[in-house]
């Protein structure tokens, strides 16, 4: 089976004035469909850069990134936008919901940019909210929801376009431990349902719940191991 994500010698270099910073130096990684994987590492390890590249928010300066059979490392901005829309569902630490929009409208957003219209869009968004247990909060704005509920809205939004990967960046970073646990159970459930989940985190107990942990250090893969103790 060919990998969902195929990364070869991926490098990302930033220029700050005269200084060149190598945030990633030659990362090679395969991620298969329906994997549940955590990317860990201390700050400065290249974790965020990795997340941006995996999420097609950024392009590498070296190497190749194949996503779902398409080489996305050399695409234009608009082509990347299309890939993000179809293939990737983002879940952020700070939720990143539109404050003035209702839950339903927030979840509809990816469908707007996918060109899904009217009734179908509303129905799909409502179904996604149902899936995360928030079918009764569709007309609430983010400010009227708890942190856990907001993150569920964000997960519904990430899922609504049926993406190849769910990419979560410190998804429990802003939540208390009880709520974190709830949210992690949602991810575990989604994974059990066949969803590929990639989580970027620096919290070992979050990573411990995934099935594979990739640790980055100084822009390189330090370790890549199967997590045998994962709660299945």
């Amino acid at each position: 089976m060919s990998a969902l994500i195929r990364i070869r010698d991926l490098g990302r270099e930033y220029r700050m004035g005269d200084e060149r910073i190598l945030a990633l130096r030659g990362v090679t990684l395969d991620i298969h469909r329906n994997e549940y994987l955590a990317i860990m590492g201390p700050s400065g390890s290249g974790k965020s850069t990795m997340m941006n590249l995996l999420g097609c928010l950024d392009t590498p300066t070296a190497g190749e990134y194949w996503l779902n059979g398409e080489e996305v490392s050399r695409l234009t901005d608009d082509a990347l936008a299309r890939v993000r829309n179809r293939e990737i569902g983002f879940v952020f630490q700070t939720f990143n919901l539109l404050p003035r929009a209702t839950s339903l409208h927030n979840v509809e957003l990816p469908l707007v940019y996918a060109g899904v219209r009217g009734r179908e869009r509303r129905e799909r968004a409502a179904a996604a909210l149902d899936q995360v247990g928030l079918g009764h909060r569709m007309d609430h704005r983010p400010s009227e929801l708890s942190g856990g509920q907001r993150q569920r809205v964000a997960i519904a939004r990430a899922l609504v376009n049926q993406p190849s990967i769910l990419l979560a960046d410190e998804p429990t970073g802003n939540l208390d431990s009880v709520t974190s646990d709830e949210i992690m159970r949602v991810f575990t459930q989604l994974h059990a349902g066949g969803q590929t989940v990639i989580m970027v985190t620096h919290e070992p107990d979050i990573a411990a719940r995934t099935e594979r942990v990739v640790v980055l250090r100084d822009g390189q893969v330090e370790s890549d191991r199967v997590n045998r103790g994962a709660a299945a």
Partner: protein
Amino acid sequence: MPLLEAIRLAFRTIRGQKLKSFFSLVGVLIGVTFLIAVVSIVQGMNRYMVERFANTLIGANTFELRQRPSINMGNITHETWLEWLRHPRVSYADADFVRDRIRTPATFAKFCADRVSVHYDGKVAKDVELVGTEETYFRIRNYELAAGRAFTAQEVRASQPVLVVGHELAEKLLPGVDPVGKVVQVGGLPYRIIGVVARQGTLFGLSLDKFAIMPFSAQGRRLICPINILDALIVRTDDPTQMQLALAEAEAAMRSRRQLKPSEENDFAFQTAEGALGSWKKISRILFLALPGLVAISLVVGGIVIMNIMLMAVSERTREIGIRKALGARRRDILAQFVVEAATLSAAGAVMGIGFGILLAYAVKALTPLPAAVAPWSVAVGVILGVSVGLAAGVYPASRASRLDPIVALRAE
């Protein structure tokens, strides 16, 4: 993003911040208000001037031979005025001479008028326009009689002391009485009222019904004109072509009678409806020339305000832009969103401006004698201008928004 979607989104955003949105579209609002109001008032004035003013005071296809023009608008220089005063006045003999030499079919009336007081039964009506003229005057003016009759050629020849009065004069001086047959005092002389002219309405808020008409030959003539002297000979023809012919004949007759050399200017004047409108046309042309400038200034200001508001919106909503981009918005989606938002804002201003402009025009119409007529084309121009100002003002902020790096935008506070 489809246009309709973008417009709906724009309305949602605008509704989300009503006050700020309102202030940002005030410039466009004022510009369009101004456009609609000025065009409405000028157009209304135009129609009024042509339909009421000129045709009421002079009449269609009609001209007056006078010492000097009777209706002046705009600035007459002191020199011109003195020149006019040096003209000899029009005499009975001038009038008869011209009448004999006009071959074009026409109706003529000698005319003299001034303001006098009319007394009846201890009451007095001041500032009554006393007209001394011939029986043809009623036909020239298209006067219809509400009561009684007009005077006849015989009565003119016989210098009979009879009066045909205006509606208002009859009501004020003889309220609740049938005026026909009553005798009133004009300059101490008794005059018998034989007819009342149907209501003529007002002009610029002044009544057109406060007059009395008598044969020019009657004794009261001395109150309004010196012996043998006329204010005007009124000539009415059937159509504009005939009027031009008659005008030329009248001019030739007067020049030969006054023995003017080809190099000399006329020492008499013709007043036409067209001529009365001349100055007004100049004024309205200036207004219409100045209008685009005035409207343009407020629209440019309005556009700059909207551009600023949109630039602020872009920096305030950087995170929103980042989120949208992360979720798959392409550059052109973001571009469309902000351009449409600016255009919707501006169009909303334009629509309000149209509303205010029409209100203003009707307020002017209701509160002053000035008329107003809303010109449909000005409404269309208002909408088009509003939308284009918004589009122009939105492009720069929107293109900045569309070029934001999603990673940077997502990190924004």
